[in-house]
């Protein structure tokens, strides 16, 4: 099946090369698309030099709109499967098989790579863990199925979801929010266990206050999504 990797990248010149080579090494048949979200550094040229397609947004649109650009490209070019893959080096291409298999067998429309299905392997800060736990509980309630890792940005979707995302893709907290929208549109959501790295370079540590604040904002956004009008399939 024609597969496209979409890598949203904002100022990732230090990591993007490693990420692309990782994918090229493990999934040579797939095409790679980097969405350069108005980076101020060399993200775009580093990616181009590795021979992948680069779409450069005219200004920083944010992760949601950047990913949606990738889905629009996937739709235009007729890809069967689109994989969202972070540009910061957290995700590992050797974990992809588990994500793609359920899609290829038609068992799910979207497969999320979960750090928490493999016990004890993911070591994150306490706050981040707590925030994800809390969100996981709330999102699971809303979509009426267990979602262990709602903020995971490693996910693979089939063509139907690509088309859905072209019309409905949240701007603010796309990972958890899109799950609610997909559930409302009656898509089949599945999770697969994956191992992730900590960020390669650059840090993103969070305080307890920011963790709680993040959860509150996401919950509000998700509740708004719950009352949105989404056509059912």
């Amino acid at each position: 099946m024609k597969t496209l990797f979409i890598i949203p990248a904002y100022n990732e010149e230090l990591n993007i090369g490693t990420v692309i080579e990782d994918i090229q090494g493990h999934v040579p048949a797939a095409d790679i698309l980097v969405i350069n979200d108005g980076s101020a550094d060399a993200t775009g040229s580093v990616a181009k030099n590795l021979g992948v397609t680069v779409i450069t947004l005219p200004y920083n649109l944010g992760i949601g709109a950047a990913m949606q650009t990738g889905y629009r490209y996937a739709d235009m070019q007729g890809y069967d499967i689109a994989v969202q893959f972070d540009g910061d080096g957290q995700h590992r291409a050797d974990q992809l098989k588990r994500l793609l298999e359920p899609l290829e067998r038609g068992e799910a429309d979207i497969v999320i790579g979960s750090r928490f299905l493999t016990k004890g392997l993911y070591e994150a800060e306490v706050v981040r863990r707590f925030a994800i736990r809390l969100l996981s509980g709330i999102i699971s309630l809303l979509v009426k199925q267990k979602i262990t890792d709602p903020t995971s940005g490693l996910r693979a979707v089939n063509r139907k979801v690509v088309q859905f995302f072209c019309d409905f893709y949240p701007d603010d907290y796309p990972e958890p929010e899109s799950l609610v929208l997909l559930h409302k549109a009656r898509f089949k959501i599945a999770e697969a266990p994956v191992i992730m790295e900590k960020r390669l370079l650059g840090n993103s540590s969070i305080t307890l206050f920011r963790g709680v604040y993040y959860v509150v904002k996401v919950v509000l956004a998700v509740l708004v999504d719950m009352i949105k009008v989404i056509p059912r399939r």
Partner: protein
Amino acid sequence: MDMIPVLATLVSLVIVLAVLELIRRNRLKEKYSLLWLFSSFVLLWFSVSRKSLHLVAGYIGIYYPPSVIFLLGFLFLIIINIHFSTVISRLSDRNKTLAQEVALLKEMLEREKGR
């Protein structure tokens, strides 16, 4: 004599004239000025016509009739603000789509040139 009706009349008149002038100079689209015009005309009406002001005040049980003008002004402001929020949302949505299309087209163009 009570100053409030005079003041209210003056203020409403200034708003009406300001909106009309902005439209005349093409600085305000008619589409976005209708709410302003409507609101300021209603306020002007109640400022000038004591009879209708007292009638409405008595009808809804407001003991101090000029409060009706404040109430209406407040309500109009809320409505106009909500209206503008929807306008801004639509604009930013279209802006996003445009930026995405430009980026997709640019990529296509570069690929064509490279062939």
